[in-house]
Structure formats: C-alpha cells, structure tokens
C-alpha cells in the first residue's frame, strides 16, 4: 500500500506552512468537537454562547476562567520543561497530589510560625512534587528505564494515598466527610474579591515569566536546548547532560507540586479528592500547543481554562459529564498531531515505485 505516494522530509519548514497546518488542525479539531456536542444534544447557538460569550465576556465566567488558568499554567509549564529534555512526564497528577498533601500537612500540623505558613506550604508542595518524580528520574537517567508508564503508575499510588488519608487520619472531624479539615485563615492566600480570583494566578504568571527568563537567558536554558535536540551529541561536546536533565525534570515535578499546593492554600483551602482532575492530560496538551514556550503556555492555559469553564456549565445544563472536556482535548490534540504531517513531509505522487 501507499507505494505510489512518496514522502520527503522537509529540510526547512516555512513559517506560513507551519501556521497553516496548525490552524487547519485546530479548525478540524474544534469542528469535530462541536459536531459531537451537537449530536449529544447541545443546540448550535447555545454552543457558541457557552464556549465564547459566557467564558470570556461575562464577569462570572471570566473570573472562573482566570482562576482555573493558574493550575493549568503550572502543569503546562511542568509538561513543557520535562518535554524540553525529552522526558515524558505523564505523572503530573501524582506530583500535584503530593504537593497538595505536603501543603495540607503543614497546615494541619501547624508547622512553622503562622506568618510564614503560606510560604512554607508552597515550598513544601514544590519539594514534594520534585521528590515524587525522583524515582522515575533516577531509573531513567541511571538505568534508562522508560519513564512513561512509571510516572503514570506512580500517579495511581499517590491518589490512593490521598484516599487513605481522607478516609482515615485526615477525615474532617467536624462533618465526617472525606475531606481534610479546613486551613486556618493564616494558612489561606488572599483573594481579590472578584469571584475566586486570588494570589494563585499572580504566582502562576510570575513563575511563567521567571521560567521564560531562565530558559531564554540562562546557561541551563541553552544546555536544555542542546540536550533536547540531540542528547548524544550534547554529551560528546562535553555538556553536563545528566545534570541538565535532572534539573529540568525536578523543576517539572516541583511545578506540578506547586499547582497542588496552590489548590490547598489559595482556592480550596483543604485537601479533597477532586483537586487532581485531568491535569496530566491538560498539561501535556498545553505544553504541546505552546511548543514548550513558557509564554505560549500562558496563552494555551487560558484557552483550556475557558474550555473547562464552558464544560462545567454544559455539565449543569445538558447533563454532560466531565469526560466531555477530556474528549475535546483529545480530539484537538489528535487533529493537531495528524495535521503536523503536512508540515513535516512533502507529499509527492511517484511515477513508479521509486524507492524499492
């Protein structure tokens, strides 16, 4: 099959082609998703209203989108930084869970002076997230064991540990529900009085800016680029390859941990079973959309956050499950991956079977 079609890898992809395939993939993805929602019983005009008007142009909707963007920026950066050194971090949720556990632990056991409590919580969250990616990182760097399945399985273990805590030692004594006790006021980060918007989005944006400077201006950023292009060559030229991979992957874990810490300290004020919701896949999609660029991550995260806002109202009005947002993300990613083919290869019809 396909002998008559010959593919030539493009040496140099023109920007216009790249943009056109990206836009085309996105359009196909959005079109297919809209079609599916329409089949599921959402009328067309409601779709436009929910997806664009409510999400970005109404005060409530925008507030929800901005709040939702903060953890998405962090997990997007997490995925992007690991991807830069070709490490597949599919365990973002696991690192997020440990970040949330660590932050909640600081609050529940009243560790440290109250003034420093929020700072300690976020610091502990970063450390816990970095620690949780430590095992797959070590196995990958030292024994070159594939990290893909490993990171994912560790997520399941982390989530089971959360449940172990919530149905056991950390069950809220006031209500008996499987949620941790609420953080005290000193352990809560400030909100601005506009919906749920608070310090978490400020922190996420600051982190994105900082990481952009790191990856664009620092030596580590240049090393990372070399490792990402070709680790073997980088090693041969004497660059500290292992150190670079270690730094970026630990940073990736810390970022996901921070997302969990912020959920506890800035939005939910407690550990619940619902903090982790599909952040792994969203992070990977955002990192991919942004081509691992930190500032691109911010833009992509806002778009995905908007989708989540729309999703939550579709859920209420048309009894669709959370799975719909995941489905749309999946379709869009798949369309973009397929469309990339036309940017990577030049398709030509061969006169005869040339290459055989």
């Amino acid at each position, binding site marked *: *099959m*396909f002998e008559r079609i*010959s*593919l*030539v*890898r493009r040496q140099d992809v023109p920007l216009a082609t790249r943009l056109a395939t990206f836009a085309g993939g996105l359009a196909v993805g959005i079109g297919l998703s809209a079609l*599916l929602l329409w089949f*599921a019983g959402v009328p067309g005009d409601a779709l436009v209203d929910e997806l664009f008007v409510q999400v970005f142009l109404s005060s409530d909707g925008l507030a929800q989108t901005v709040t939702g963007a903060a953890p998405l920026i962090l997990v997007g950066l997490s995925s992007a930084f690991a991807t830069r050194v070709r490490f*597949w971090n*599919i365990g973002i949720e696991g690192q997020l869970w440990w970040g949330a556990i660590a932050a909640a632990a600081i609050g529940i056991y009243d560790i440290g002076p109250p003034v420093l409590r929020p700072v300690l919580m976020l610091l502990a969250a970063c450390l816990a997230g970095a620690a949780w990616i430590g095992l797959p990182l070590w*196995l990958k760097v030292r*024994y*070159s*064991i*594939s990290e*893909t*399945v*490993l990171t*994912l*399985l*560790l997520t*399941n*273990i982390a989530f*089971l*540990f959360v*449940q*172990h805590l919530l*149905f*056991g030692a950390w069950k809220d004594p006031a209500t008996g529900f499987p949620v941790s006790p609420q953080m005290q006021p000193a352990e809560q980060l400030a909100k601005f009085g506009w919906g749920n918007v608070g310090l978490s989005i400020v922190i996420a944006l600051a982190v994105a800016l900082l990481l952009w400077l790191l990856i664009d201006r620092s030596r580590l950023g240049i090393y990372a680029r070399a490792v990402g292009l070709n680790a073997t060559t980088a090693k041969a030229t004497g660059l500290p390859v292992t150190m670079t991979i270690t730094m970026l992957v630990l940073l990736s874990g810390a970022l996901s941990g921070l997302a969990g810490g912020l959920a506890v300290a800035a939005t939910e004020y407690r550990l619940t079973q619902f903090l982790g919701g599909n952040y792994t*896949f969203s992070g*990977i999609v955002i990192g*991919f959309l942004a081509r691992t660029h930190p500032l691109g991550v911010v833009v992509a995260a806002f778009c995905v956050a908007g989708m989540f806002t729309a999703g939550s109202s579709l859920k209420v009005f048309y*009894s*669709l*499950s*959370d*799975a*719909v*947002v*995941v*489905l*749309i*993300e*999946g*379709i869009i*990613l*798949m369309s973009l*991956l*397929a469309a*990339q*083919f036309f940017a*990577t*290869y030049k398709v030509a019809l061969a006169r005869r079977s040339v*290459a055989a």
Partner: protein
Amino acid sequence: MTEFLVSWLASTPTFAIPIMIACVGLIVSERAGVLNLGAEGLMAVGAMMAVMVTLRSGHPWAGIIAGVGAGMGLSLLFGLAVVVLRADQILAGLATVAMGAGLSGLIGRDYVHETVPGLDKITVPGLSDLPVVGPILFNQDPLAYFAVGLALAAWWLLMRTRFGLRLRAVGEDPAAADVAGVDVQMMQLGAVLASGAACGLAGAYLSVVASQVWVENMVAGRGWIAIGLVIFARWNPSRAILGALVFGGADALLPRLLATGADVPSYLMMMLPYALTILVLALPALFKVGRGAEPENLGKPYLRQDRR
C-alpha cells in the same frame, strides 16, 4: 485457611483475564514496532459499548462483539495517525486514552449503573466438584479459557510461523523487512487493529463478565498495568499468562480479605498491583536481564525515504 486460599485463587482469573487479553494484544502491536499507549482508552470504549449493546439486545455475546468492534474502531484512528501520518506515538496514544474516556462518558451516560446479564460459568461435569482444584480450574467463564488459548495462539503465531517472523521483522528492522517484500505499513496497521480488538475485548470482559455493570472510569488503570506487563512478559505472549495471573492474584486479594472481615488498610492494599508493576519494570534493568527483548524499532515511525 484452605477455604480462603481456594476462594482467593478461584477469583483470581476474573481479575487476571482482562489484563491478559489486553497484554497479548499490546505485545502483537509492540512486536510490529508500534507503542500503543492508548490501551486504557480502548478498554474504556470496549467496556461501555459492550454494556450498551448487551442492554439493547439482551445478549451478552452481542455486547462482547460490539466491545471488540469499538476497540478496533478507535484503534483504527490511532493507527492511521501513527502509521500513515507518522504522528508521535506517545502523544497520539495519550490522545486515544482521552478520546476513549471521553467517548465512553458521553455515549454511555444513559447506561451507568444498569445491570446486564453476564456469561454463565462453564462447569465441567465431575471435575468441577473436585476439592480445591475444581473451583479454581474447572469453574470459570468461557472467556477465561478463551484468553489462555488466545495467548498461546498468539505465541504460536508470532514465534512459530512465517507470518510472525515477518511481523517481528517489521518491529526489529523495518527497512530490511521492506526490502524483503513485507508491506510495513499494512503490517503495523493490522497489528494496531489487533491490539484494539484485544483491548476492546478486555474492556467488555470487565463490564459484561466481571462486574455486569458499567460505570465511568471502571478500567481504573488496568490498561496501564497491561502496558507494564508487556515488559514483564518480555514481549512473549505465553509469559503474559503468568504475569497476568500474578497481577490478578494481587488484585483479587483485597476483596477476598475484606470478605473474611479482616481489618486491612484498603487503599494501601489497592496500591499493590501498581507497586508490583513498577517493581517489574525496574527489576530487569537493575539486574540487567531481559535486555534486547524490546523490539529495536519500537516507537519510531518508518519512512522508506529515510532508509540508509
């Protein structure tokens, strides 16, 4: 104690079979060089579709066949993306997981928590009544026996036939296979479809046979465990039987323990299969065995024009 052991071992196959079937399918796909990370999503659509068709038709077998079809349908999308359009296999696999989870949630929303008729167990006259071995070996559902047969057939097909040799050649050295006249892309597409059918069947087993009900997220990581088991089985279907039984045993332990009234930390016990999989992934590398079993070209798209 014997009673506990017997009931535990007798319930093990129910947990082992879905992992075994999925694992065998994934081995076929990986032997042809395609890393199919979409197993979790393929199992999800299989499970949902099987329940939907069983409820509508009243026949569990019709549902099971529909589950297989659903797995193949979604894997065709994945296969076209990675084999024909050379999309990144890891990202496309993750997208398949998302689409499988999403589709099953969207289409199956009206079928949640509805009980379906399952399959009757096969009782071998005389043998089933034997003490100890009777309930363990001779009182299982038909798909359990089928799964073992499937694994052995896949082993024979891959390792002992000309077709299997060609399929493995595609995964090891597609350029050489191409020169030898093997249609690399058709072989890979076929292998992906086979893995989709297997994952769909595994999902259908979970919903229609094992639990006789469908809920969202019921696959619960078993697809990923099956992917891990491929490495434990060293890409050999007959070893997948052993691996799946070990994991099924670990999975079956908790409900059996709870049934005896033992006070166990449930959520920590539920970590066991995942922890085992991680161990299984790490140990061979730590002790430097099993290297070289992995297909050489796993995860890389083949482009004839790139050939050296």
